[in-house]
């Protein structure tokens, strides 16, 4: 019953979306604004319809309707309520509906804004949003239907269909197969929605970009309208990536957080183009340059978002060879191909309207350095893309499948990331229009001297790895330059406005949030880099089997095996939990509880590390095996991960920085009055 309701709502959404596209086009070409208004209402109607559909899935999940195939594939009776609800995005079929639901809520929010000054964009934004929505809803309807039920045929065979085949009875398994235990983690519960929010919100700037290309209103209006959307999209995407990394660190039990897996890369690629876009739109706003380039970036981002949605689904296997294993693959590629070709043709059509208004003259000017930053991000993108498609290419060309692993990505992106760090230190000191080595050098020598001091200290502390020392230098340079910029601004305010240190800092940031929020993000990236250097270059590990009371040494840490308990939990797990004592330089610092959970419903174990985390290093213990019954001995694998906590701290600082930059302005009127140029923001 409810399945029919959900399916019906989905079907009506599809029709409404198609109607909306037609109405918007008709209204636009026949100059009938009432049709555009009707299209707008259609857009708004998709949200309640998709809400009904998504809520139907949640209802089925929560009430154990195992006759619905999706429900039985991602839930089981023992799963707690919150996991059943979040199983909405635990599999491919459900997450596609979830994606559509998010998409319609965002697109509706955009349609609700005041369009007085930008009326000509409206029909095209609706068309782009609805075409995207119709594609995803169509996938749910015709290929990955979450409401498919199980039917037992007269011959006893069970089939999966939406509507009953002739003579078939509804088949209800007594229990579901349960969500993959690896996904039952708080990080995994909020990680996919964050990633999806990021993906979906990038559709909005893309829709405006297309509207600008179609209508020929190719000034920077579309960028100003969507600036905040872009920042939020970027924030969600970044959060999704960081949470995913954290989940891997906490759950996957290999002592790391990022494995250059195609699925991770698929989520990382739109982030790269999105980051490049965020930087280069500033050049368009400030100098009227890079307009064509910005279009290219937003088109790439949109198609990489669609590609990422396809690849990051937990259900799709993590290998490039799995593309064709779902009927969904070719459809996705067709959609990506069509939208890419259509958008690029539009861009070519308007190419001459998008000529730069000024010329770049100095290689060291801020705009040139921004351009360099863009090229580096795109360089990393090309490396990632190459790594993902290389196996397919090599098979096509030589008939032999050749793959590249993490060493490829590390080697190829390392210098590019280092160059980005260097730019991050230099660019804030450069001037618009023109800078020379001399002006830059004058601004840079003090921070550089401080950074050299950091390297000397690292040398004294015993670090000899050249790459690590270089990384420390770059990180120190970013930090000192950024702090120097803050200090310069604060001091100027204190002098001019006679403000105290605290209020000068607050005012400085408040009056130029984009800039100082951006610097905060730079600082957070330096923190992230520190953590990454720590774990990538200085991780050490050991393993051993210990009798109770014995201990194991790793660096200046040691741990002793105290006890182990095996017990069942009410939610269907069998848990083996060890107690180990950790000593640092011979001093007791605490107890850790590495454990192994065995999930009865899926027959799968899950290894959860015990971690002692400090700013300096993490001591990470995995329980590998133990002697049954007597539990006299147990085997452990132990990692020492220096500085890795900076990755998570950097993540938090990153969020704060982006919030500072993206938070809606309260005193916008004042800004408008002050600046000669009209200043408007979207959707607030």
């Amino acid at each position, binding site marked *: 019953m409810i399945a029919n309701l959900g399916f019906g709502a989905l079907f009506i959404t599809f029709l409404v979306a198609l109607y909306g596209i037609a109405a918007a086009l008709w209204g636009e070409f026949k100059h009938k604004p009432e049709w555009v208004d009707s299209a707008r209402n259609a857009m708004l109607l998709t949200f309640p319809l998709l809400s009904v559909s998504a809520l139907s899935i949640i209802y089925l999940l929560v009430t154990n309707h195992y006759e619905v195939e999706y429900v039985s594939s991602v839930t089981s009776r023992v799963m707690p309520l919150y996991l059943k609800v979040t199983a909405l995005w635990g599999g491919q079929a459900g997450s596609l509906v979830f994606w559509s639901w998010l998409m319609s809520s965002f697109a509706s929010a955009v349609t609700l804004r005041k369009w007085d000054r930008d009326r000509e964009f409206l029909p095209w934004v609706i068309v782009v949003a609805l075409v995207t929505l119709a594609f995803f809803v169509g996938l749910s309807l015709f290929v990955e239907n979450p409401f498919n039920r199980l039917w037992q045929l007269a011959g006893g065979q069970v089939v999966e269909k939406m509507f009953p085949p002739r003579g078939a009875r509804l088949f209800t*398994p007594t229990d579901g197969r349960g969500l993959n235990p690896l996904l039952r983690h708080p990080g995994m519960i909020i990680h996919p929605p964050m990633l999806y929010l990021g993906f979906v919100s990038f559709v909005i700037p893309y829709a405006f970009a297309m509207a600008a290309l179609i209508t020929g209103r190719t000034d920077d209006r579309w960028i100003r309208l969507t600036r905040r959307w872009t920042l939020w999209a970027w924030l969600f995407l970044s959060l999704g990536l960081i949470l995913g990394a954290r989940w891997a660190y906490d759950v996957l039990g290999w002592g790391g957080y990022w494995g250059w897996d195609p699925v991770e890369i698929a989520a990382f690629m739109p982030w790269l183009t999105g980051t490049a876009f965020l930087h280069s739109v500033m050049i368009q706003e400030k100098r009227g340059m890079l307009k064509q380039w910005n279009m290219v970036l937003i088109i790439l981002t949109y198609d990489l978002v669609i590609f990422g949605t396809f690849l990051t689904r937990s259900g799709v296997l993590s290998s490039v060879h799995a593309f064709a294993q779902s009927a969904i693959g070719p459809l996705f590629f067709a959609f990506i191909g069509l939208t890419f070709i259509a958008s690029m043709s539009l861009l070519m059509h308007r190419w001459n309207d998008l000529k730069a208004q000024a010329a770049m003259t100095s290689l060291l000017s801020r705009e040139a350095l921004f351009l360099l930053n863009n090229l580096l991000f795109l360089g990393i993108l090309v490396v990632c893309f*190459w790594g993902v498609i290389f196996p397919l290419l090599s098979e096509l060309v030589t008939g*032999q499948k050749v793959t590249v692993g993490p060493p490829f990505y590390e080697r190829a992106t390392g210098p590019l990331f280092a160059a980005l760090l260097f730019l991050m230190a230099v660019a804030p000191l450069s001037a618009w229009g023109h800078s020379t080595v001399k002006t830059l050098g004058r601004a840079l020598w003090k921070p550089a001297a401080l950074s050299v001091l950091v390297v000397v200290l690292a040398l004294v502390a015993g670090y000899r790895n050249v790459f690590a020392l270089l990384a420390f230098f770059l990180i120190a340079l970013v930090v000192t330059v950024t702090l120097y910029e803050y200090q310069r601004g604060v001091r100027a305010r204190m002098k001019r406005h006679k403000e105290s240190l605290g209020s000068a800092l607050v005012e400085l940031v408040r009056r130029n949030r984009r800039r100082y929020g951006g610097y905060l993000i730079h600082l957070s990236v330096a923190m992230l880099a520190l953590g990454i250097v720590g774990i990538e270059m200085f991780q050490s590990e050991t393993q051993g089997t210990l009798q109770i009371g014995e201990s194991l040494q790793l660096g200046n840490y040691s741990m002793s095996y105290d006890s182990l308990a095996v017990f069942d939990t009410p939610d269907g797990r069998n848990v083996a939990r060890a107690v180990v004592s950790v000593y640092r330089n011979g001093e007791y610092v605490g107890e850790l509880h590495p454990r192994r959970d065995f999930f009865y419903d899926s027959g799968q174990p899950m290894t959860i590390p015990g971690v002692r985390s400090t700013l300096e290093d993490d001591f990470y213990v995995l329980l590998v095996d133990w002697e049954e019954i007597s539990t006299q001995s147990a085997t452990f694998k132990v990692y020492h991960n220096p500085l890795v906590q900076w990755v998570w701290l950097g993540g938090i600082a990153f969020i704060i920085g982006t919030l500072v930059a993206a938070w809606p302005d309260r005193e916008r009127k004042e800004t408008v009055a002050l600046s000669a140029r009209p200043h408007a923001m979207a959707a607030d």
Partner: protein
Amino acid sequence: MEDLPVVQGSSRNRMKFVVGGLLIVAAVVYLIASSTTASAQYFLTVEELLSKGAEVRGRDLRVSGAVVGDSIEYDAQTLTLKFMVAHVPGDNAEIEAQGGLAQVLHDAVADPTRPRIQVIYNGPMPDLLKNEAQAIMTGRLGEDGVFYADELLLKCPTKYEDAVPQQAEG
């Protein structure tokens, strides 16, 4: 990268940027090319690995096969994991034609005449290692014909795909 932003101005000025841009493109191309050659791994099926034998010995390889559950041995003292993998086709169309990955993995393990190879891996026992899982291993073929894996990636297709009929019977 063909859509580099148009830079206007004097031709000398333009040259400056073109040269700079080309240098960066060249650097990226160099990084990709050198890293590819340094870390490329041949992706082979068990059958290909056995037939090439000495030809690929000592090289970085990636091999995919079906885990034979009965052969899994684990020594927790030394963290040494030994198991056999059976040949599964590398080609997707072939896998589909034989009834999907789950079916192919099942058949591979059930058929004793399929080519098999011994794998040795050092480390914690992976959670997903079980009968009929797909193993993707990175490592080298030793003189003794054993595949020494440095890295072990496992997938259980039954988790995600149409395993409904079996599920219903079970």
